[in-house]
């Protein structure tokens, strides 16, 4: 019952000396002696790669709860169907496009890190492009609210509009979080401390935002 | 300072006194409140929920939304000067509001803006006093038996419906008024507004839940004006 396995093999990797005064890099804040992204890739230890999926699980759970609330509430007789602002279709496209640009950016960064491409400008450009599209999306959501307001549909007007505002607002908040992540990635890319795992996590989150939006959009759009 | 000055001063003082105090030359408005039509039937209140109170009423009390007397007189109507009289500072006396046998005594309590309101609980059970003020600050407090009276005051004129949620049948009214010229009609429907200096007044009679009638009255010197109000009541 007590599992005592034979001692595993230990291979010693090259380690920067960490016995000194204590300023050590790595993990969240590795500043390699040579400000070189390739060094960063090699020496920075693997950060947690599961965390992003854990976070996504939590977000899914929250929106599942909201969905159940929506379904329960739809059953009541005061439910009115509202026609969604047309701008939403545009912003949906923007969000999808941003996912594409981010993928391109990811490939560029990868090829740069592998040395295939020595130009750091183009990956950064694509990241900025994604950032811009994300901002446009949030702006689009804001315009959607203005449109609803002009139709006299406020948060408390009817259950459907309540859910619309709640869903879009919370999703927009999460998107803003993603934008912050992108900015962070761009900064790290700038001072050569970007780890691929960081970029990957950011990308996964960003794509998830797209998926989540499509789900919410359909939920609000289709009569269930 | 000359004699002339003194005389003037004296005259002025005298004038002031006659204007305000109940001196000679101040009039009175009195009268009777009656109703026409059929008043709503007052239902007996079953207090079995609160045995300690039920025990205090061998014959069950009834609701008090309309309390009538012989000859179609109407009780619990508050009559006051709504215009013509200046606002007055609150008197030092307290307006007492008691909870006896799960009933408000008095049912209709009139007092002045800023006057001290004293709410006491004579029962063996907890009451919660919940004046549903709209203009004034609304509050809702419980008063366990044997606790000191609740002291409060209102700073705006308002007719406030008072209820106890623990004993839903308990219902009363605070009539918070701007001046001291008010009266609540007695069981014969009589009311009396004394000590009114000469002037033109608007007299308002108010009956719960929100029936209101007004009349203009001119008082010149120490006369007695009689005013009467007739409320139209419906069975439902």
């Amino acid at each position, binding site marked *: 019952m007590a599992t005592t396995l034979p001692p595993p093999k*230990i291979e010693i990797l090259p380690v920067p000396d960490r016995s000194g005064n204590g300023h050590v890099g790595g*993990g969240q804040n590795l500043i390699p002696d040579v400000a070189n992204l390739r060094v960063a890739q090699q020496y920075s230890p*693997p950060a*947690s790669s*599961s*965390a992003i999926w854990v976070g996504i699980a939590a977000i899914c759970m929250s929106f599942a709860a909201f969905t159940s609330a929506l379904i329960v*509430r739809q059953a009541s*007789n005061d439910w009115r169907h509202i026609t969604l602002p047309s701008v939403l279709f545009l912003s949906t496209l923007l969000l999808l496009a941003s996912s594409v640009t981010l993928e391109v950016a990811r490939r560029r960064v990868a090829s740069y890190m592998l040395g295939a491409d020595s130009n750091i400008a183009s990956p950064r450009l694509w990241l900025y492009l994604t950032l811009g599209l994300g901002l446009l999306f949030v702006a689009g959501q804001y315009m959607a609210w203005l449109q609803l307001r002009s139709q006299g549909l406020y948060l408390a007007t009817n259950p459907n509009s309540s859910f619309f505002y709640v869903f879009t607002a919370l999703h927009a908040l999460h998107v803003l979080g993603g934008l912050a992540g992108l900015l962070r990635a761009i900064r790290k890319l700038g001072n050569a401390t970007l780890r691929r795992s960081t970029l990957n996590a950011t990308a996964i989150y960003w794509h998830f935002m797209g998926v989540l939006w499509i789900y919410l959009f359909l939920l609000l759009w289709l009569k269930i | 300072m000359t004699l002339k000055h003194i005389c003037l001063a004296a005259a002025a003082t005298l004038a002031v006194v006659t204007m305000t105090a109940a001196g000679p030359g101040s009039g009175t408005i009195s009268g009777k409140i009656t109703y026409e039509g059929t008043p709503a039937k007052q239902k007996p209140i079953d207090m079995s929920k609160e045995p300690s109170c039920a025990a205090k009423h061998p014959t069950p009390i009834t609701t008090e939304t309309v309390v009538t007397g012989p000859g179609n007189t109407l009780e619990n109507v508050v009559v006051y000067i709504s215009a013509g009289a200046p606002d007055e500072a609150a008197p030092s006396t307290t307006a007492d509001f008691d909870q006896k046998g799960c009933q408000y005594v008095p049912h209709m309590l009139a007092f002045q803006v800023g006057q001290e309101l004293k709410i006491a609980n004579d029962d063996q059970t907890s009451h919660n006093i919940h004046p549903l003020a709209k203009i004034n600050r609304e509050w809702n407090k419980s008063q*366990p038996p*044997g606790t000191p009276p609740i002291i409060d005051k209102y700073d705006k004129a308002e007719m406030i419906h008072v209820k106890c949620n623990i004993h839903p049948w308990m219902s009363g009214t605070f009539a918070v008024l701007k001046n001291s010229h008010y009266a609540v009609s007695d069981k014969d429907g009589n009311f009396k507004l004394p000590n009114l200096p000469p002037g033109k007044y608007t007299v308002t009679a108010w009956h719960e839940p929100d029936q209101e009638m007004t009349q203009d009255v001119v008082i010149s010197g120490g006369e007695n004006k009689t005013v009467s109000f007739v409320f139209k009541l419906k069975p439902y």
Partner: protein
Amino acid sequence: MHETSAAPAVVHGPPTTFLSKHVFSLDHKVIGLQYYTLALFAVVVGMVLSWLMRIHLGWTNAAIPGLQALSPNGAPGGVMTPEYYLQLMTMHATIMVFFVLTTAPFAAFGNYFLPIQVGAEDMPFPHFNMMSFWTTFTAFLILVTAFFVPDGPPLAGWTSYAPLSAIGKDAGPGQGTGQVIWAAALGVFCIGQLLGSLNFISTVLDMRTKGMTLSRLPVTCWAWFITSCMGLTAFAVLMPATILLILDHVAGTSFFVPSGLVLNDQLVPHSGGSTLLWQHLFWFFGHPEVYIAIIPGMGIVTHVLITNMRRPMLSMKAILYSMWALAFLSYMVYGHHMFVSGMNPFSSLVFSFPTLMITIPSTVVVLIWIGSLYGSKLRINTASLFALGFISMFVSGGVSGFFLAQPSIDIMLHATYFVVGHFHMVMGVAAMFGIFSGTYFWFPKMTGHMMNETIGRIHFWLTFIGTYCIFMPFHYLGWAGNVRRYAAFTDDFLKPLIPVHQFITIAALFTGAVQLLFLYNLIHSRFRGPAAPANPWEGTSLEWIMPSPPPWNNFGGKDPVVYHDADQYGVKTASGADYIMQNSPEQALATSEGD
């Protein structure tokens, strides 16, 4: 004995300033201690509240000296008003459930020992970890402000059933601002716990040191891992619920408030909402929350027991699987809180079976604990005393679940003191015993000082007997139909029970006072206690290979390598010790189990 391996993920440097060392620290150990301190403060507040409530229940019209000064409206002349009783009750429950039972065994001990026991230098996201604590702390502050708003705290209980909780001040004192503050506090608390759970899970998944396979994780790590999985899902559901509740208050939406309600003879301006929706959302969080409070305790107790029994559990696997089963089932049974709440009577039956099923994993755990005692060399010390007390309490609280799991019996016992007794024993007191056990066990490691054993034992004896005197009678009261959440007992069939309440009150005051011993022991030992060796209890898990207290970077910048699971007790070794530490390559000569 130590062996180095690859460089661990150094996640932050050593603290340099006072702020970064003690206040906004990134160090999981400091954060753990911060959580512990918060829980300690919260539990004192919660306990004082319960004292006031108990006095009121025993002697309803007695004036409590000084209470008027605390709340002139709540206690005119020192006599507690019904609403103030309910407000204290609500705050007592909220503080205890969220800021004691969730923070202490999970966030406090977990933060301190999870990274150490998996051999990591810290959690992967120290900044999230720090935010997690400070968000929780903010939530606590927000909650406490409810005491200082004009109408006082909410009176709707910790379950805050809509519409009472959703229609605002007309529903009663505290239902306006107070209720919103309550909901806001919980929403913020959820954020804190989500960040924490995120860290816990990724620590276990990604930060394990060389050789620390999942099967070698100490049971406590599993307990915290399971708990954080539940926390992640449960708090993610509570937060939406609180958001919707706040919107119903401040934005005039109608998620939980149906049409045609009348308060004080006035129509409530809401329509179409669903009152059961809140109950479903709340209990979907609420029942897992119960296990969030107890599972870390089970882990701690198992950990403390194997160390003091000097033998492994009969089957650690059985315990782990049972914990997973509890966690899983807890999501399928929440409906048993709503048997008579107007839910479809068929679903009541549907919910009752998984609820009954929960007794199986619980029984497995208890039997494994008891069975493992057989033939052990049980060392009696305060930690093990509390661990054994935990088992006794867990059994006492657990069996009452037999009754409450059945809808038909729930007809009689629902919302009575039987329920109150049940959850206080199984989730309140048992979890508390887990916390005490963990404290006496790990205090030397956390502070570098030993606790006073004599005071500790006195504390155990008085607490053990005291809590039984308090919570057993609750079951008798409930059996006689004593409804809970009553500010006074005026009904003919309740008046005869008042003496029982008076007995409970006395027991509660006594037991509460006893906790001062614990506080004294804690503070005194922190400064005056004798220096603690690295491994005072001869434990095997990684926290015992480092000096007490551990340095800021846990293993001095070197990662331990793990060769065994944490159950290497009662073995024969060359050195003559009856245990092998996880990071020692040494192999047992022959395990001395069996006769």
